[in-house]
């Protein structure tokens, strides 16, 4: 497959380290993550729970819970600005304006005490400085854009009057209301039913086309990645283990963990076969293996894996953090 197309980079995350307060002191939950998102590109950030993918997404906008999580080092660049170096005030003009977010739980991500339309208009007024009335019109307009019927009437309703799928549409409407350059969507479909999930993915892809924005899609679901992503970043135990374009990843994974994930993907396969899985479990931040973090669960592990592997270019545009990336032939998706 071709290397990632040489688009201009919009977001660059470089050697990001994030620490969280745990029972065991400050533990590193994201350990030197680097990746980028190009203009008008949809990038999937994939991993299981505990991989650090959500934390990475939150770090971009400085949304780590105060006193619980902190960025220890690294840089996050949007265009030519280092977001981590911005003052709180400057960062606020980026949030919701240049970079917007959609979260996993549509049921709890909207404020139950305020009308849906007002919550959207609030962001518009803040960043566009328009009149109350114009902001409201814009709110109705984006609600309509994301496919909420009777948008003008529904704008006056409270979140509890919306179904889960509608709330996620409203969240997307809020996110796109100021036409951001980058949308970070954190597991936007995980809490939704499969038919609603299909609607929301279709909507996200449509919005990306229409507004020409970039999307960083944080998910644990390779099916979601297969549906909409052009490029994929795979995280395991706080590190990027593989990064390449989507088709290449599914065809020729270069990291045993990715192979395991692909093999474990739910298939509409036949009954009676054993389902494959990755043995063991993700290590805790305070108990990381010394060498390769995946080695204890890896069937290909050799002595060399006692040393931490670097993230290297396995092929043009294909990065892998595996000592044996060039000698193994790993199975892709069926």
């Amino acid at each position, binding site marked *: 497959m071709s290397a990632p197309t040489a688009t201009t980079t919009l977001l660059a995350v470089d050697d990001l380290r994030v620490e969280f307060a745990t029972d065991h002191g400050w533990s590193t939950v994201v350990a030197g993550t680097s990746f980028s998102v190009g203009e008008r590109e949809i990038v999937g950030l994939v991993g*299981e729970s505990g991989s650090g993918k959500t934390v990475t997404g939150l770090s971009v906008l400085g949304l780590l819970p105060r006193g619980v999580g902190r960025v220890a080092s690294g840089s996050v660049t949007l265009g030519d600005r280092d977001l981590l170096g911005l003052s709180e005030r400057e960062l606020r003009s980026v949030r919701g304006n240049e970079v917007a977010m959609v979260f996993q739980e549509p049921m709890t991500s909207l404020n139950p005490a305020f009308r849906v339309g007002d919550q959207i208009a609030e962001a518009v007024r803040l960043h566009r400085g328009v009149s109350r009335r114009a902001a409201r019109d814009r709110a109705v307009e984006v609600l309509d854009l994301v496919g909420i019927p009777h948008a003008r009437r529904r704008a006056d309703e409270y979140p509890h009057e919306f*179904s889960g799928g509608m709330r996620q549409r409203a969240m997307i409407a809020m996110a796109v209301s100021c036409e951001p350059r980058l949308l970070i969507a954190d597991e936007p479909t995980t809490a939704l039913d499969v038919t609603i999930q*299909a609607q929301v993915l279709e909507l996200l892809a449509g919005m990306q086309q229409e507004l020409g924005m970039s999307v960083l899609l944080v998910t644990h679901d390779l*099916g979601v990645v*297969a*549906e909409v992503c052009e490029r994929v970043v795979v995280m395991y135990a706080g590190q990027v283990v593989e990064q390449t374009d989507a088709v290449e990843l599914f065809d020729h994974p270069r990291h045993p963990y990715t192979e395991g994930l692909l093999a474990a993907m739910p*298939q509409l*396969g036949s009954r009676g076969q054993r*389902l494959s899985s990755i043995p063991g479990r993700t290590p805790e931040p305070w108990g990381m293996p010394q060498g390769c973090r995946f080695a204890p669960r890896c069937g290909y592990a050799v002595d060399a894996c006692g040393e931490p592997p670097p993230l290297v270019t396995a092929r043009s545009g294909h990065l892998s953090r595996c000592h044996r990336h060039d000698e193994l032939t790993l199975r892709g998706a069926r």
Partner: protein
Amino acid sequence: MNTAGTTPGTGPLLEIEDLRVTFGSPGPRGRGRVVRAVDGVSLQVGRGRTVGLVGESGSGKSTLGRAALRLVPVRSGRVSLDGRDLTALRGRALRQARRDMQMVFQDPYSSLDPSAVIGDSIAEPLREHEGLSRRDAERRVKELLDVVGLPAGHAGRYPSEFSGGQRQRVAIARAVALNPSLVVCDEAVSALDVSTQNQVINLLEDLRARFELSYLFIAHDLAVVRHIAHEVAVMYLGHVVETGPTDRVYDSPAHPYTQALLSAIPASHPRRAGTGTRMLLSGDLPDPADPPPGCAFATRCPYAMDVCREAPPATTPVDGGGEVACHLQTSGPTLAGRTLDAAGVRAERDGSPDVVPAAVRDAP
């Protein structure tokens, strides 16, 4: 207590007939809300078989599973296990009947008492039904831990010390402790990471063979159900809209809702994304307290005809096994008893509700 014609040992293990479950009350002057969670469902689970029950949230599938075990009050209809009418049982007789039917719940974080060690949770059915001494129960708990692949020495640990997958193994050990004939698995793997999920499914398959269990396997993940179930029932808004052998239902769905569900499954490879027909449903599930008058699916169905909005559809058999409740199958003679694919009905990718399939339009 054998009131039905079936005798133990023959016929289906679990038989549900025209079951109705409602929540809420009409209230004074009828202003209350009555949710018809399960609205006239009939279903059977054969011995040693796994029946997958699929549907989205709000379809009533969990309520059906609970009603089958008499964990929620049944409004009308009959549930019998091994020929014995469960709906007639009360108090002590019901409690004793429970040893043959167990449940594995969705959330492994709340299905185990956080203040009790796991050995205590696993021993509860043994103490209750077999009156085992502390020592015998301890020995059995160790055996059971071994069966589900956990170290026997962990019996004295608290649930908080285990991962989600390990807790689900504990819950499964508790469910099979009495060697029941039926286990209802209510979204038993959906809270787990994908790799752990597969481990638990494999365990369930092993146990079915080993203990001759029958499963009613409730899930929203169609891929998982296809793997584990012999037969499938599809629920929508309190109704079972389609049943049948798993392969038939997945390969040639006879109900538009089944088709929509299947087409919504994300692709397993980017190259396959956007290929095939995707039937995007418009809108959301109707309010279960105020269901549409005719077919429950009519409000979102791309094939909906006038009759669909007026009268509930009757159930008809389908070629290849199973039944379906859809007017397309009764009002359209060219389709009757056949699957949607076989009849050449295909929804367009945009799923416009105006699309009327040729087969239907030409029907008299």
